[in-house]
């Protein structure tokens, strides 16, 4: 795999999530990108169970268990700011066994689904982020396959993203900052999705609490 950047695109003024996704994909198709199947990234949240908290000063940490259709045989387990574990897909069953320690916050399940596009050596995935029954946002993932060092191709990625995202092209993802010269890997993409999902979950709390 190459270097990947995951970003959120705001819903266009006066448009629905679906309409904004269509606008984006139409721009990609005009650029010459070709449709290549679909993708899905999902994320489940686990709380450290009450019995293990309590030993002084330790707050309950959140753990995220994620899947990516690009790696169908793997399962990713991440802590916020913490390490990322890449396991076989049957890790999920293990989590059920560990429910004394980790409890699944089912209502927090969030996922992004959409279409994959290929343009030259770029792979673009435009997805609708849903939590429960409703669409909450739009994710755009851009992968540049030939390059393995994130900072080497950031400018090039940026130029490509601007060509179809315009001013919504993102800044440097925080994972790039810690990579230096090491090879970019699938876990780095999952961390970016985790951060994106967390951001969208928080954004969601605002309209629920506030009055519109």
């Amino acid at each position, binding site marked *: 795999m190459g270097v990947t950047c995951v970003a959120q695109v705001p819903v266009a003024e006066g448009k629905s999530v679906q309409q904004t996704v269509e606008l984006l994909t139409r721009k990609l198709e005009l650029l010459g990108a070709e449709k290549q199947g679909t993708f899905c990234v999902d994320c489940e949240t686990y709380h450290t169970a009450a019995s293990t908290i309590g030993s002084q000063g330790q707050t309950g940490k959140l753990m995220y268990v994620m899947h990516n259709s690009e790696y169908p045989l793997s399962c990713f387990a991440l802590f916020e700011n913490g390490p990322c574990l890449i396991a076989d897909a049957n890790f999920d069953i293990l989590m059920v066994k560990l429910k004394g320690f980790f409890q699944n916050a089912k209502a927090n399940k969030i996922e992004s689904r959409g279409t994959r596009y290929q343009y030259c050596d770029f792979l673009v995935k435009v997805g609708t982020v849903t939590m429960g029954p409703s669409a909450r946002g739009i994710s755009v993932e851009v992968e540049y*396959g030939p390059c*393995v060092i994130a900072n080497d191709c950031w400018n090039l990625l940026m130029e490509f993203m601007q060509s179809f995202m315009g001013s919504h092209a993102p800044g440097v993802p925080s994972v790039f900052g810690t990579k230096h*010269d090491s090879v970019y890997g699938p876990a780095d993409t999952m961390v970016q999705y985790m951060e994106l999902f967390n951001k969208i979950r928080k954004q969601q709390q605002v309209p629920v609490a506030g009055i519109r």
Partner: protein
Amino acid sequence: MAEGVLSPGVNLEAFSQAIAAIQALRSSVTRVFDCLKDGMRNKETLEGREKGFVAAFQESLHSVSRDLGELERLSNLVGKPSENHPLHNSGLLSLDPVQDKTPLYSQLLQAYKWSNKLQYHAGLASGLLNQQSLKRSANQMGVSAKRRPKAQPTTLVLPPQYVDDVISRIDRMFPEMSIQLSRPNGTSAMLLVTLGKVLKVIVVMRSLFIDRTIVKGYNENVHTEDGKLDIWSKSNYQVFQKVTDHATTALLHYQLPQMPDVVVRSFMTWLRSYIKLFQAPCQRCGKFLQDGLPPTWRDFRTLEAFHDTCRQ
């Protein structure tokens, strides 16, 4: 012998019978003319002489027509021998009655003419090129080979130790470039060049001449299933396919037949400029991407980065 020449469609039995029939026809025709030549034999009466001549003439004519009939019958059985055309079996195409729909035969003749012409021009061109000094190998013949005898062949039979030394010196010259030398197929060396974390290049050598290069991504597999260097399959990425094309052009550009080690070093110096393949914007248009590709061309002298379509 005849069996070898004839196509399998020919009925050999009928063929030998037909030959016999031809001989019979010839002898009966000879008899007709003999009969005419001899004229009327001595007979008691003029009438007797005439009668005898006419009977003999009639009889020999009958045998001619009988033998001819027999030959005709056999010739239908023989089938068509195909060897009698100057273009051999392809000559049969001219027998196709629907010329307008399948003008294969005329196209064939045209192609034949073209290939003759091509051969002629290629001969002229090779004569001219042999006078130039642009050569990669010593197997050219002609004028210049006589002028510079034996200077080139020596570079093709360099001892492997010398090649190893040249390569390891280049390896030490460029810290961001690592070169692995192997000889899986006898004396010819193969190099696996790894340039930073950007790309890998497979270089196939013949003595100190570079025969072939393939550029692949840092994360791409360069070995076949049995662990040998894969010198045939190309990169999955368009950017490295493009760089492979340019590297092949570079091989033709860097030429100095008397000093092959300088050529290899120049080529590697040029190749090293790809360390910034994804970081260098185009020196002409200032952009990173054009049609989805970064600047894949490196100028042979200045080593500046250009898009394929922005160079010149």
